[in-house]
Structure formats: structure tokens, C-alpha cells
């Protein structure tokens, strides 16, 4: 047995134990990427660096054997900075989108590729769940959203964008037609009451997410009907009232209370709202901004002045979102703000100081090179975009929706939550552009295997797949070729990936720390 200290804790381990494993025994987690149980002495990623205090040197803990009298530190500024720099170097040579460009461009961040894939499989109700997850009013926006997602759709480099907007309208329509009226399960009731002033896109969205988080919501509006700008500014021929009614109806079913014909006066605000509710959200878009000071709100350059991260204003428990903070052209921006405000309000109600919801790290790269377009075309169909006669007012039939969604090129990563590179980049706040000096490599995709997909430019050269297929004597397996920066995990003798894997494909995909090898 060997005695050593890790982070000042004494520990005894059998001879041959690595520092990584020793630390694990006392509950200290060290990040690893190239390490995989059963494959020892495999340091390459250098994310598991720890410090030997005696020499002051950094060592990869996965391959560092514990030695008698060792004194190890697993985290200090130097270690963190080295790990971060290792991640940044790996990112500088990692070509891939964690989330697809469409999702990144969408203010509400709908998981568009996933929705598309479900539609393509004919699972329309599941697709609707995905749409509704991030977008409270997918039907309404299906009519009026200018669709920033479609502008960045990589399919535009082939022919035309996928009709994303019409697709979420399609699944929302189906939900109503089939009388599913899907609503997500609410969290435990909090017995907290929130007043929302205004029933436009921001207010409706905020209400939906607050309800979902378990709070009671009352929406106030000066008009006789709810919908705000959606109903009173947008022409009926662009957005039929039936669509507004339908999604407001759903919200009512979910538990929202509407108090219409109610003009918010200073008295009402101070006496009823402030006293009767635990929090207030100001979301009326067309408020006369010169009156703001009467309520004691601070007036900024564009409207009510808010904390940009949390939507709090200068009064405790009061939040503001939508056009009242700044006039925007896109309803989807207001919808996204309503959602973000609900997040802040929820923290406030739970007695936590509101903080902006963390947006997960995203690796991304720009426009596709022409060779890359061909790679992306491998995972889609050549069909042209289906243009409906009435444009956004029109409806896809099922077959059309399936075809249109199948045109999606699957730009998102297959391992968005299990990719260690993404997770650690997020944890260490890595800057993916820090070392972006060289020409980026060109994306390639290998689909021939029935179980796995191989995307070499996402690889971090940990060689686990080579070792696994070699050790378990698969047909041919991958080969690590060339050296230095040009090392590549390649398929020997110009074979196809189908021919080289027989048994270990799945294991390789699971071991792969990034999305380079993933299950189909």
C-alpha cells in the first residue's frame, strides 16, 4: 500500500493506483477526456493535470502512478489555467456546431433540428413537445415570425432554407386538430402569485413559463380581448384571430387568469398589484413611455431601464420585458424575453438573487466550404423547398411536412450533452476563438456504418477508438496516421467505415469523448 496526500487529505491506495483513481476514492473529481477505464497510461488530452507540490510540476493524473509520500493538489489557479488552455487548444482544432446555427439564431432557442427529425419520423406530437419546450406560442409565431433561424439555415448553401417556421406551425396545428392540447407537466405549486401587465407575446410567454414553474399568474390588459400587439397591431389576414384565441385558450387551460379591460393606474399598481402579488411583470408594449416616471420607474434610452441580465427594474419584485424596455421588430424576441423574465421571477420568488440563465457553451464555425456542402448533403434529401401557395398562411399536409423536415441537414452535434469537450469548455469558460489563428480544417462525415457516424474534424486524437478496436481485435479498426498536428484517425487503405468495424463500433462511440464518433 502507498500513502499519499491529495488536497491535504491523507489516503492509502494499492501500488499501481493512478492519482486520478486515488482522488476518486476520496470523492475528488478530476476532469478527463482521453481516459477510459481499462486503458491505462493514456495521457494525451492534458485536461486531467494535477500538481505535485514537491516538484511544482504538472502531471496528467490519469497516468501518474501514486507514489509514497506524494503531495498532490488537484486544483489551483495554475492548474485551472493550464486545463483551460488545453481545452482552448482542442477547441481551436475542433470543427463542429454543438447546437445547429438555426437554434443558435433563434432568440427562443428552439431545438429545431430535433423537432425536424421527429417530424421526419412522423412523430408530430413529440415534435410539438420540443417546439413548446422553448416557445410558448408556436402557432402564432408560425404565422408572423420573420424566422431568423431560416436565414442562417445551412441548407441555404445548397438551395433554400428548411421552412422551420411553417413546420412548428404545422405541429401546433396538428396538436389542436387532434385535440391533444399538450401542456407540459407543472412543477410543484408554490402558492406565489405573479401579476403580468400586458397580454402580448412577452406577457403570454412569461405567463406560460411561470405557470410551468408552479406559480399562479394573473394577466392584466386594458383591452377587451387578450393578445396585445398580436391582436391589435398585426393584420388579421396575416395572423388570424383564431390562432390567437387558440393559444390564449390553451394558456387559460393551463391556469392563467385574464383580467381584461383593466387600465393600470398608479393606484392600482401601488395598492392592488404591489400588495396583492409576490411579483409583478410589466409587459405592455404600447405604454406611453412619458408616463413611466409617474410610477417611479427609471426611464432609460429606449424605455424602462432594466438589468439586462435579469429584467429587474428599480423596484423590488418588479420586472419588465417586451417592447416596453426596447421596441423590437420581432415578436420572437419578446417571447424569448418573457421566458427569461419568468426564469428571473422564479428565482426571486424562491428567495434567490436572480441571475441570467446560463447558456451552455457552443462550438460553432462559419460558412461551409463548397466541399463541405457535399458532406452535409450526405445526410439529407435533394428535394427542393416546398413553397405553399399562401406562404405562411398555408398548411403543410403530413407528407409535405415530412419531406420538408427531412431536408434538414442535421447540423447539430449528436452528443450535445455527453460531449466532454463541450461540458468542460463550459465549466472552464474556455474561449473557443483564443487560438483561432490557422485555417480551419474541412468537415468530413462518414455515414456508411449502420450504427455509427464518424466526423474526423471533431476528433481530439485521444486514440481510444484505435486502442479499443485493436485490443478487441475488430476487423480492421481505425488507424492513427501521420504525426504532429496532422495526426488523423483514419480508415486504412481507403476502405469505408462499414468495412473496418464489426464488433466495437458501439463501444468506440461511447468511449469517444466528443461527437467525433457517435451513434446514429
Amino acid at each position, binding site marked *: 500500500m502507498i500513502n499519499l496526500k491529495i488536497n491535504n487529505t491523507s489516503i492509502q491506495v494499492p501500488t499501481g493506483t493512478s492519482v486520478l483513481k486515488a482522488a476518486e476514492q476520496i470523492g475528488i473529481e478530476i476532469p478527463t477526456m482521453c481516459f477510459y477505464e481499462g486503458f491505462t497510461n493514456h495521457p494525451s488530452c492534458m485536461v486531467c493535470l494535477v500538481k505535485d507540490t514537491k516538484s511544482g510540476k504538472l502531471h496528467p493524473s490519469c497516468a501518474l502512478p501514486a507514489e509514497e509520500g506524494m503531495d498532490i493538489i488537484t486544483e489551483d489557479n495554475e492548474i485551472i489555467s493550464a486545463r483551460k*488552455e488545453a481545452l482552448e487548444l482542442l477547441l481551436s482544432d475542433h470543427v463542429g456546431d454543438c447546437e445547429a446555427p438555426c437554434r443558435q439564431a433563434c432568440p427562443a432557442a428552439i431545438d429545431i433540428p430535433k423537432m425536424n427529425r421527429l417530424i421526419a419520423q412522423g412523430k408530430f406530437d413529440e415534435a410539438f413537445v420540443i417546439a413548446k419546450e422553448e416557445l410558448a406560442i408556436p402557432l402564432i409565431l408560425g404565422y408572423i415570425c420573420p424566422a431568423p433561424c431560416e436565414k442562417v439555415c445551412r441548407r441555404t448553401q445548397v438551395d433554400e432554407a428548411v421552412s422551420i417556421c411553417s413546420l412548428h406551425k404545422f405541429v401546433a396545428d396538428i396538436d389542436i386538430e387532434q385535440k391533444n392540447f399538450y401542456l407540459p407537466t407543472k412543477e410543484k405549486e408554490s402558492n406565489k402569485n405573479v401579476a403580468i401587465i400586458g397580454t402580448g407575446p412577452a406577457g403570454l410567454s412569461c405567463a406560460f413559463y411561470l405557470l410551468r414553474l408552479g406559480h399562479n399568474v394573473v394577466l392584466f390588459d386594458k383591452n377587451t380581448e387578450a393578445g396585445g400587439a398580436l391582436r391589435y397591431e398585426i393584420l388579421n389576414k396575416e395572423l388570424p384571430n383564431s390562432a390567437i384565441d387558440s393559444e390564449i385558450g390553451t394558456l387559460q387551460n393551463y391556469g392563467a387568469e385574464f383580467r381584461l379591460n383593466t387600465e393600470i393606474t398608479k393606484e392600482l399598481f401601488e395598492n392592488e398589484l404591489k400588495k396583492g402579488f409576490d411579483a409583478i411583470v410589466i409587459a405592455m408594449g404600447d405604454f406611453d413611455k412619458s408616463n413611466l416616471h409617474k410610477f417611479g420607474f427609471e426611464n432609460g434610452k429606449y424605455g424602462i431601464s432594466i438589468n439586462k441580465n435579469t429584467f429587474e427594474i428599480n423596484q423590488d419584485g418588479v420586472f419588465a420585458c417586451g417592447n416596453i424596455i426596447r421596441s423590437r421588430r420581432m415578436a420572437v424576441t419578446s417571447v424569448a424575453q418573457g421566458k427569461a423574465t419568468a426564469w428571473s421571477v422564479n428565482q426571486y420568488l424562491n428567495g434567490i438573487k436572480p441571475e441570467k440563465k446560463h447558456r451552455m457553451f457552443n462550438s460553432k464555425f462559419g460558412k461551409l466550404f463548397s466541399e463541405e456542402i457535399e458532406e452535409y448533403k450526405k445526410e439529407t434529401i435533394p428535394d427542393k423547398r416546398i413553397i405553399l401557395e399562401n406562404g405562411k398562411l398555408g398548411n403543410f399536409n403530413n407528407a409535405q411536412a415530412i419531406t420538408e423536415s427531412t431536408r434538414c441537414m442535421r447540423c447539430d452535434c449528436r452528443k450535445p450533452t455527453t460531449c466532454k469537450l463541450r461540458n468542460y469548455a463550459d465549466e472552464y469558460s474556455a474561449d473557443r476563438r483564443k*487560438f483561432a*489563428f490557422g485555417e480551419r480544417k474541412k468537415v468530413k462525415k462518414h455515414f456508411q456504418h449502420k450504427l455509427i457516424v464518424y466526423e474526423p474534424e471533431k476528433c481530439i*486524437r485521444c486514440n481510444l477508438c484505435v486502442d479499443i478496436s*485493436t485490443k478487441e481485435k475488430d476487423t480492421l*479498426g481505425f488507424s492513427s496516421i501521420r504525426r*504532429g498536428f496532422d495526426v488523423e484517425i483514419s480508415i486504412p487503405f481507403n476502405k469505408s467505415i462499414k468495412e473496418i468495424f464489426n464488433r466495437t463500433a458501439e463501444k468506440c462511440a461511447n468511449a469517444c469523448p466528443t461527437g467525433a464518433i457517435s451513434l446514429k
Partner: protein
Amino acid sequence: MNKIVDNIIAEKGTSVDAAIPILQAIQAEFNYLPEEAMQRVCDITEISPARLYGISTFYTQFRHKAVGKHIIKVCVGTACHVKGAMRVYDALRRELNLKDDEDTDSDDLFTIDKVACLGCCTIAPVVQIDNTTFGHVEPGKVSEILEEFLASDDNPAGENSYIVEQNKHTDGEIRIGLGSCCIASGSSDVKLELEKSLKANKTNVEVKQVGCVGICNQVPLLEIHKHGETPYFYTKIKADEVNEIIRKHFKSKNLLTRLKTDISGFINNYVINGIPRSVMKYSSERDDTPVSEFLNGQINIATEHRGFLKPNDIVEYKKLGGFEALKKCLTQFSRDEIIDTIKESGLKGRGGGGFYTGLKWQLVKDTKSEIKYVICNGDEGDPGAFMDRMLLESYPFRIIEGLIISAYAVGANKGLFYIRAEYPLAVKRIKEAIYYCEKENLLGDNIMDSGFSFDMKVFEGAGAFICGEETALIASVEGNRGLPRMRPPYPAEVGLWGKPTLVNNTETFSVIPWIIRNGAAAFSNIGTENSKGTKVFALAGKINRGGLIEVPIGITIRSIVEEIGGGIPNGKAFKAVQIGGPSGGCIPASLADIPIDFNTLSEAGAMMGSGGLVVLDEDDCMVDIARYFLAFTQDQSCGKCTFCRVGTRRMLEILNKICSGKGQSGDIEILEKLAHSTKKGSLCGLGSTAPNPVLSTLRYFKHEYLEHIEGKCPTGKCVELIEYLIVEECIGCTLCAQDCPTDAIAFKPYELHIVENELCIKCDICRQVCPVNAVIIK
């Protein structure tokens, strides 16, 4: 093709570790690796395609595409780099009309390739076409070189010996050095001419072919020893001058020839008279000659009997005390006594790391195992270093003796020479020497009737700098890609095939016999407090007398540069020395008085490394030097660790950015931080020392980096930051216009010529051909 491959496999074996030798043999046969042949290897051996493909793409020696009839290797080692190797390379590409992605000309006659170092640093820049080496190549002269090569294609220089009739009284001895540099400088031709001349004159003189003399800057060099006369050196001889020299010293036995030579000699002299002669003659007794100044201050331990010993003459080696040390070890010393002697001598490994040799031996001895190995690391890969090559070529028996002693001391019965395939002469001489030793029972079973048995063979490295690292070297012998692994366990415990293995550098082995013969104290008396003995350096770059030197540790940089090396040529100012190659650093002239040892060098930001010492003058751009080494290490990185694989590439990109005038403020900080992280976060010596050239130039020459960021290269080296200009001194001779490869200079006889900068590719030819120095860099 299958038949050929089958024969190769029959000879090399079918096991995994035969992969590299098999590929080498296939390439020797076809000049590249045809895919069909690779397939065949996989079909009938244990080597999987994944492994074979991994190996064949790892080592630079292997080619996957058919090549031209002749291969042009442009050396881009450090010494060649500072003397304009890239311009030579570009000029050759232009001459062969190669497009960007091509390396073989349209006639399939020549394939061009860059090589890390041919080890002929003293005659830089160097180009090798097949087996012919050309030194001092100028970009404007590349077409002549190709023509000359094609003209002499049927007449290759050989190493055949002229044999004096046995048992006859000789009138004297002529010694000629035949190291690789000497051969590259024309020594083979001189030797052929010498033998022809001696035969024609019937002169009874022994021509003795000796190893590297070290004075590489003065070669071809002849030493004439005549009974009862002062020996004379002749330096920089040309083949056509040999006859005259012979005639001066030795009278012809053949009257007729004597008459003839007298007459033709007279005519020759008459014709030659008035033409400046390059040959210089020096008496060995004077101490103010370039030769004696060069040799003064040197101590010959690794290079004992330099310029005298015939490399593959075992009889002579024995006569001079060879194998006495071995005999002493086998008969008088216990194993512990040998190891104690080495420990007491204070010898540190000469490969760069500087670990105590005695301790290493002790570790291997103390590890219990039936089988142990010793390996001589001759995978010298530093650009700008050629010590190991010279030692292997010149003193094969001494190194073998050192190796046998070490094997006896640690209890190993198998040994291996790992030598770069780029050193064919070294491989040949070691193989010959092993053969002689086996014949004389110095190798094999029951050596000298001592009961100790030891076998050894040669493994040819396939071109990977990283294989100089001991764990990578072992991986490569085992038939793998040369990837280092985590230490511990050290090879002393778990080495080749999992057995305890002693890996020492060539130079380390070469001093062992001397230490045993002369005692530990004799060695430890030389050197400094913490570093004992001598060190062999390859002195090259901007220096009057480059060459191979063995000096006592503790000598100052200034003594090496000014006394031994004779200072900087052309009256330029001494700026810095680059010591230790890609792992080392640049030490500025202001620190030239520090005594060189393992500690002082690392304190100064450099490293002993394996001993490359490249002198830089005022014209050398330090950012460019840092970039040069980074380009080398990033190309040679095995690609395992993130910091080395990606980090060195990113550092190189930052340096490229800075050198091309696109640097921004902040770049230097990112570079420096990344350099420190790479030092800390790399597994092996290559990665952890790769940032040294960057860090040391940042430490001493940061102002040059800053000037680049401002868009100026103070030395005019970075082509994207300079312009060529012709000034009033121009006499209108049109030479620049004639030689300009891009017609950027128009013909204007007797007028001031003008460089059109839009067309100029900055090849420097105009500046080199201008007779009145009217072409300047701005």
C-alpha cells in the same frame, strides 16, 4: 511484386517488430511504398493494416507516392537555414517548374524534398542529390548543380581503397578524412585522384583514410607524413591539385612518369600561375595556422586519436589501447566497481537530459530480470548537430567497446544500435565494426573467455526526431509509431519488450573506455563543479572555422566562437549562439563569457541538448530563428499531447503572423503564455522544451518582436517586411536583370537598374550577383 515482398518478409520476419525494416526494404526496392506491397505485407505477416499504415505515415523516410529518378534533398537544418536554405529550395522548385502541390518534375527526373539536417552544417547550405552532396549552394547556381549532377551521374564517388603492397617499405603516409562532410566537400574525388596519381607515379605511400578530422571548414584536407619530416596539412584541396602536391613531396619511382609529370607539371604551373589558389599549406609545427588554432583548446576523449585513426581498422584500434578497457572490466573489475567508476567520474548523459550515467546503470543493474538490453541512441535528429554521426563514422569500435562495458556492468546480453537511416555511412561502419568484433570474439558468446556473452545488431531509424526520446525509441524498435509514454516507469525498469533497458547516447558510450582506462579522477578533473569531462559540439553557422569540436565543459562561449571558431566572417558582429537545437535557446553575445555547463545553460534559457552550436550574426532575425525551430518541433511532434500537437502549431502560427507583419498587440502575450503552458503540460522532453527557442528569444530579444509588430524586421530577413532596392552605386552591368527569375528587374545597360517590387519574390539572387553591392534591403 508479391514475390519481391515475400522475399523481403522471408528475410525480415513476420512479427510486428519487423514492420519498419520491411517497409525500409520495400522502399529500397521501389523507391516508395506501393499500396499493393503494403497490402501484401498485411496479408502474410502479423502486422495489421492499421498498424502498418500508422507506421508508414509516421516516419518521414517513407513515401507513398512514386518519385522521380533522382531525389533532391534540400537540407533545412539550422546552419543551412541561417545561410538561406529556403531560398535555395525555392530556386530549385522554380528551376524544376514545380507547381505548389507538386514535388516531382514533369519528366519524372527529380523529386524535391526538404530534410531536417544532413549533418553537413559546416558547408551550408547543402543540397544532396541521390548520394552526391553539394555544399555552399547559392540560389543563382541551382541550374549548374543539376547539370553537373546529370553529367556525373554515371560516375559516382566511391569508397574503394587504394591498397599499398603488403610488407613493403613505404615512403610515408597520406591521411585523408572521409567523414560525410569531407565526402560532400569533394574528399572522395580527391582520394580517387590521389590514388590514381600515386599509381601513375609508382609512389610507395600509404593512403590512410581516417575519420572526421573535425576541421570541416577546411576540408578536403590532406595530411602528409613523411619519415623524418614535419607533417604538412593541405586544406581545401581540389582533385586537380592533388598531382602537384604528391609530386612535391614524393619522388616518382618511374623515370618516364617523372619526366612526364615534370613537363606537364611545368605546363600546369605555368598555366595556373596568377590564378588565386584556394589550397593552403601549413606546417603542423606552427601554432598560428587555422588548423592549429582550431585544434588548440580542445581535449580529445570521445574523439581520441582524431585525424589519425582509421575508422574500420580493428588492428590499429587495438594497437592504440582499444579494448583494453573492456579487458580490464572483464578481468579486474566487479560490476559494481565499473558502475562506481562511472559514478565517480561524474559523467552525465550526453544526449541532452544530463542524467547521471552511473546512476542510470545502477538502476538497470538493480532491476532483477533474466533479460536486459542496452541501446545506443544514435538517432541524432537536431537540425544543426552531427556529433553522433561523426562519432559513429569515425570511432565505431570505441562506441562498441563502451556499449559492451555497459552491458557487462548492468548484466545485459543483448544490445542495439539505433541509428538514423539518414546516416548511411554511420550504419555501414558500425555494421562492419560489429562484424570485425564478432570475428575477434569481442562480441558473441564467452567474450575474451570471460564467460560473458553479448550480441548486438543495428536498427535503422526511419526519420522521426521524437525517436531520440528513449521511450519513443523503444516504441519504434518494437514496431510501433514512435510515441513516448509516461515515465515512470523508466526504461531502466520497464524498457524494450518490457525488460530493463539501458539507453545511452552515442557520445556517452564513446567516453566510457577512456574513463575506465584513465580512471574516474582523470575525467572529473576536467569540467565544472556540476558537469564533468568534455562535450562534443557541432560548431556551425556564421563562423569562420566551423566543425566538430570537443572541449572541456566550462569553456566559455566566447573562447569557442573567437578562438576555436576564429570569429564571425565578413566583419559582422557576433549576435548570439543557438545552443541545444530545438530544445535549446539563444544566448546573446552579452552572455558569451558564461562557462558552458548543464546548469549555466539552462539558467540562461538554453540547454546542453545534444550539442548543436549555431553562431548567429547581426544579420540574423531572432523572431525568424524562433519561428524556424518551432516549425521544426511542430513538424516533429508525435502528436500525442494537446499542448505539443496543437500548441506548437498555434505558436508557429502566431510567429508566422508576426513575421509577416500581421502581428497585433497582445500576440506576444498569448505566445508567451502558451509557451509556458506547453512547457508545463507536455509529457516528454520534446514538448516540454519546444517553447525554449521562443522563450529565450523573448527573454533577450523582445525588442525585435515588438519591431515586427510595428511592421519592421530590423535585420531584413522576413521577406514580407522587406523590399529590395538598387542604389546609385549600380554600374549598370545587367547581371541582376539577367539572373532575376521573375523579370522584376529590367535590362538597362549602363543605367541604374530598378527592382519592380510587385514582381519581386525576394529570392536575394540580385543582391548575391551584384559586383558592387548596389542591391540593398530596405
